[in-house]
């Protein structure tokens, strides 16, 4: 596939604070790419560089083969969906959608036809004459999408477009956005801090932290084969353990050697080991590779989430069976469920689940909740 946007060695800093630090990224034509990371990781800055609102201190931005560092936003064939929609309050729905085409001096008939088509695409037929102030958040979001797409962009940039919507609406809009992207076949670059959103919508996920890309891959790659402790911790729940790679396909932790599917590490190299909570089997204590005591159990609907103490390390395990607190269980892990990662700057930053409590779980994503409340 052809690269439509290439970022090479991009660095940006504001007031002496480094925002992006040597970022390299290629985006293929027609792809749904998500920039995923915690707030302050540089994902929005990356998007604004592509949109032309920020000129990088160092590095090059290419659209195709053309270097566009100095090209102003109005000359770029990309359009942006802003976080708070940025609809023009003095114009009605029709005029908002027609805005870009009016600037380009398109004919009246063409504008009318395109506006009708776009409003149909986002299910807002009949809203033409409405003032944007009378629309709900979800409807405003749709107008913003129609307005951007009416310009027939090759790339659509979306900056946390669903952050201000409530959960139910957000799920519906995820599906709708994905459908729009598929049917139009244009490239979407999507910024979010919501890992679930990233995994369910994207062709490619770019995980960012501290102004650098931590991993690029398909959603399944990112989830199943995280490259470092940050990615493993940020995407989903994970038990991250210290291990030693004894030889290819053999990793040791908790004094026990486990078969695994990873190779290419040095002999006796210290590594980080990731095991997802849903990939652990619970068996009779005498049959388990490891033995632990249940310290906490929480009912989650589809499954129980239990915290198991194994030699002082608290594991999180998801299971459909009930295990009473203080019962002793055995743990078994299949070789393909063990992901071995090289040590990184993030090693040791994410401990076990010893600080786990139900209240903590509820506070886990304050940013998303703030966004929904606003």
């Amino acid at each position, binding site marked *: 596939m052809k690269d439509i946007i290439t970022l090479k060695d991009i660095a940006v800093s504001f007031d002496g604070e480094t925002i992006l630090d040597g970022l390299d990224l290629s985006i293929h034509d027609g792809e749904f790419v998500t920039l995923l990371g915690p707030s302050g990781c540089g994902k929005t800055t990356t998007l604004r560089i592509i949109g032309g609102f920020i000129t990088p201190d160092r590095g090059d931005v290419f659209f195709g083969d053309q270097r566009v560092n100095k090209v102003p936003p*109005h000359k770029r064939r990309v359009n942006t969906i802003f976080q708070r929609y940025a609809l023009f309050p003095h114009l009605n729905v029709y005029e908002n959608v027609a805005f870009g085409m009016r600037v380009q001096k398109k004919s009246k008939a063409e504008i009318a036809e395109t506006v009708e088509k776009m409003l149909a695409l986002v299910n807002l037929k009949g809203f033409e004459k409405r003032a944007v102030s009378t629309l709900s958040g979800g409807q405003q979001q749709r107008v913003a999408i129609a307005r951007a797409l009416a310009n027939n962009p090759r790339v659509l940039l979306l900056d946390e477009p669903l952050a201000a919507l409530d959960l139910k609406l957000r799920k519906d809009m995820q599906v709708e956005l994905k459908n729009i992207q598929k049917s139009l076949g244009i490239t979407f670059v999507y910024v979010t801090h919501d890992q679930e959103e990233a995994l369910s919508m994207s062709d490619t996920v770019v995980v960012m932290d501290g102004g650098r890309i931590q991993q690029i891959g398909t959603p399944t790659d990112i989830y199943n084969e995280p490259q470092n402790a940050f990615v493993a911790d940020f995407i989903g729940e994970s038990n991250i353990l210290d291990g030693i790679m004894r030889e290819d396909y053999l990793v040791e932790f908790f004094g026990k050697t486990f078969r695994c599917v990873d190779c290419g590490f040095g002999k006796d190299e210290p590594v980080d080991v990731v095991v997802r909570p849903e990939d652990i089997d619970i068996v009779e204590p005498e049959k388990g590779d490891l033995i632990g005591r249940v310290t906490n159990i929480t009912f989650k609907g589809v499954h129980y989430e239990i915290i198991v103490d194994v030699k002082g390390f608290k594991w999180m395990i998801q299971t459909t069976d009930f295990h009473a607190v203080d019962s002793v269980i055995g743990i078994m892990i299949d070789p393909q469920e063990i992901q071995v990662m090289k040590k990184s700057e993030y090693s040791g930053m994410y401990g076990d689940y010893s600080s786990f409590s139900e209240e903590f779980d509820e506070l886990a994503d304050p940013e998303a909740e703030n966004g929904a409340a606003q």
Partner: protein
Amino acid sequence: MKTLSKIYNIIIFAILYFPIVMVIVFSFNSARYTPMEWKDFSFQWYELLFQNEEILSALSVTLEVALISTLAATLLGTTAAIGIHAMNKKLRSAMLTINHFPMVNPEIVTGVAFMLLFVALAVVLPLFKPGFFTLCIAHITFCTPYVVLQIMPKLRQMDRHLFEAALDLGCTPFRAFVKVMVPEILPGILTGALMAFTMSLDDFAISYFTSGSSAQTLSVTIYSMVKRPVTPEIYALSTLMFGTVLVLLVLANIGQIRDIASRKKRAR
């Protein structure tokens, strides 16, 4: 307690407005030098007023100066406000202090300062001889801060992404300014312009020091007239000026109320 506060209010307003009401009433009195005696209702002073060459020329100077300085101050104030808004926090508050200073500075000081400046400049540039031009310059200067003051809050309320959205949709920066930013801050620009116009109409102290014999504003002319025995023509003129300013202020207030209402609607 409630009746007491009502009475208090009535007294305050009576003190504030009684003199003006007196002027209005006696502008319709046909008696001449004994204003405290009511004779007949008549428009004779208004008729005389509009035959008085001195007053009519002063009126036209006043209106011309007000119009020119309103236009110039609105343009300057709008661009200044946008520039100040784009500055970082420190610079912005410094600039706003500089902007607010002329509004609290005693007018007479401003007037004397202008006079000195123009006298000095006139030595080299005859254009700065006291007259219409210097009046305009002075009025533009003291009106501009009021325009800035009216527009700043509108800029703060504006979604900062609106401008970027317009650029994103293909507008050049100037076009984005005209098509998106101006409509958003228009209520501020209009009230700013109205403020500038009334301030310019109102002004006496600064005009007194910056106008020459070639061009005098109404207030300066009236001042020179009252040195002679006062004629009720001046009551008629004062009534008209009071009426004009009142209408302008009411218009400005209606504009503001409408703006607040539409903002509330938008917030819902």
